[in-house]
């Protein structure tokens, strides 16, 4: 399957990765190669094959609904790029 540059731009926007004008041609070409390689899967008959999400087909186990973790906000916020009064700071979103 070939892929257009515009499609890569859309995907990059979905993935929130900026791709510069200089890079976009090369990125598109590389991803087109990978998609071409994975295209051979389309030829395989997979009717009635259940998709496998976990190699052991294991279900997630449940644990008791009790508090096991303690609040460590200060430790976690100590490694954040910008915090103030216990809040994470980002550029202004609403004018």
């Amino acid at each position, binding site marked *: 399957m070939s892929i257009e540059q515009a499609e890569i731009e859309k995907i990059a926007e979905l993935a929130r*990765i900026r791709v510069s004008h200089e890079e976009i041609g090369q990125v598109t070409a590389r991803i087109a190669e990978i998609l071409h390689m994975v295209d051979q899967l389309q030829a395989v008959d997979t009717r009635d094959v259940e998709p496998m999400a976990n190699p052991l087909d294991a279900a997630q186990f449940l644990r008791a609904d009790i508090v096991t973790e303690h609040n460590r906000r200060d430790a976690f916020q100590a*490694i954040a790029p910008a915090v103030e009064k216990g809040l994470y700071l*980002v550029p202004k979103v609403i004018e």
Partner: protein
Amino acid sequence: MHTQSVAQLIAGLRERQFSSVEVTRTYLDRIAALDSQYNSFISVDETAAMAAAAQADARIAAGNAAALTGIPIAHKDIFCTDGLRTSCGSRMLDNFVPPYDGTVIQHFKAAGAVLLGKTNMDEFAMGSSNESSFYGPVRNPWDTRLVPGGSSGGSAAAVAALLAPAATGTDTGGSIRQPAAFCGITGLKPTYGRVSRLGMVAFASSLDQAGPMAHSAQDCALLLNAMAGHDPLDSTSSTTSTEDYCQNLGNSLAGLRIGLPREYFGEGLDSATGACIDSALKELEAQGATLVPVSLPHSALTIPTYYIIAPAEASTNLSRFDGVRYGYRCDKPVDLHDLYTRTRQEGFGDEVKRRILVGTYALSAGYYDAYYKKAQQIRRLIKQDFMDCFAQVDVIAGPTTPGPAFALGAKSNDPIAMYLEDVYTLAVNLAGLPGMSVPAGFVDGKPVGLQLIGRHFDEARLLNVAHRLQQATDWHLRRPESATLATGASSNASAKGSATGEQA
């Protein structure tokens, strides 16, 4: 001291032949003197390591030694370490100092091990050559013009160069086994879920698994004993009971049936590498094992299947790196969108971005069924191939890689060529099986690895087969020339590797 195995170091510490302070100092000095030629470590905290060693000595003196008390272990820089930077080989986490220890690290601390340092790796464990690290490539101790393999290339090189007696790695598609093969050491990827993934930076959550890397199967068993077990904080960790992985190392191989998949011995396998594998298999046969031809008919589909599933899961996992809560943030973002997109543009390297984009594409509206669901269906067919084989045989064997280590730069600009390096290792992760790489000889001075694949949770049997092979051969005892020189004289040394045969 640095030529001893983990098992020998444990005995020596118990018998007070030397102290953990002496052992740890020896390795720290070797890292300081020699690692500039390999670049296998990203972070070393000498003060903390020496303090842990002194504590270990006190524990031994008090008669309270645990299984690994006083043994220095290097950890791949993917495991969160409380107070010590955990970069995952990425600019994105260059400033990340975790406020907690991952479960694997906790287990090693409880077992008394000394945290020697954090090893270099491909960025976010995505790579097969250790060239995608933000901290520069790792070089192969057997010949520093060659790659060490990846993504656990720093761990493999550090062990091979005798800068650590053993190390941890992680394996999503071959990242323990392939560098173990390229560096001439022994590496084990356990069954999916055998070792907790908590505090191990996630790449592809249905494939990732941590395991030991060391010189011998016995040393891997000693490490696995500390690593394995259920973790209530990892919802995919298995509740299947563990065992003492050292207990059955010496069992006879009489009657063992070893399957040889014809797809692993055909076109694409370097003939000299194949000859090494054949001679290792002959040795196993001489010990009473029976070699049985088998087939894994969907082998050709493992690369495309993996390169949908792994990037899809990576794109989801790596969405957490947003420049808000921890890690890299771009300079002077003009708005929130700019903060996200430029942080991720600048924080991630090319291969990581490529995989995020491929994964985002495979999961996006209109393509999910054609790519992700299709790959999950074929994943089941690939697993079924193994289940069919294990109805006939106990263990599957073949080469770990199509050939020995390649030159730095040889494949770094060709993603598809790099992906093909993992042709024999990916299926094991897709099927969730345990797999090992065991030294099996040399091609022009470059190590070759024999891959052993077992049934789910049959790690003990793989270790048994590997140990029996190592009792009868000395491939795992060869050391690269560059690592056997005295520290201090090393900087001028030729790094050209050769099998010097020094005994550990």
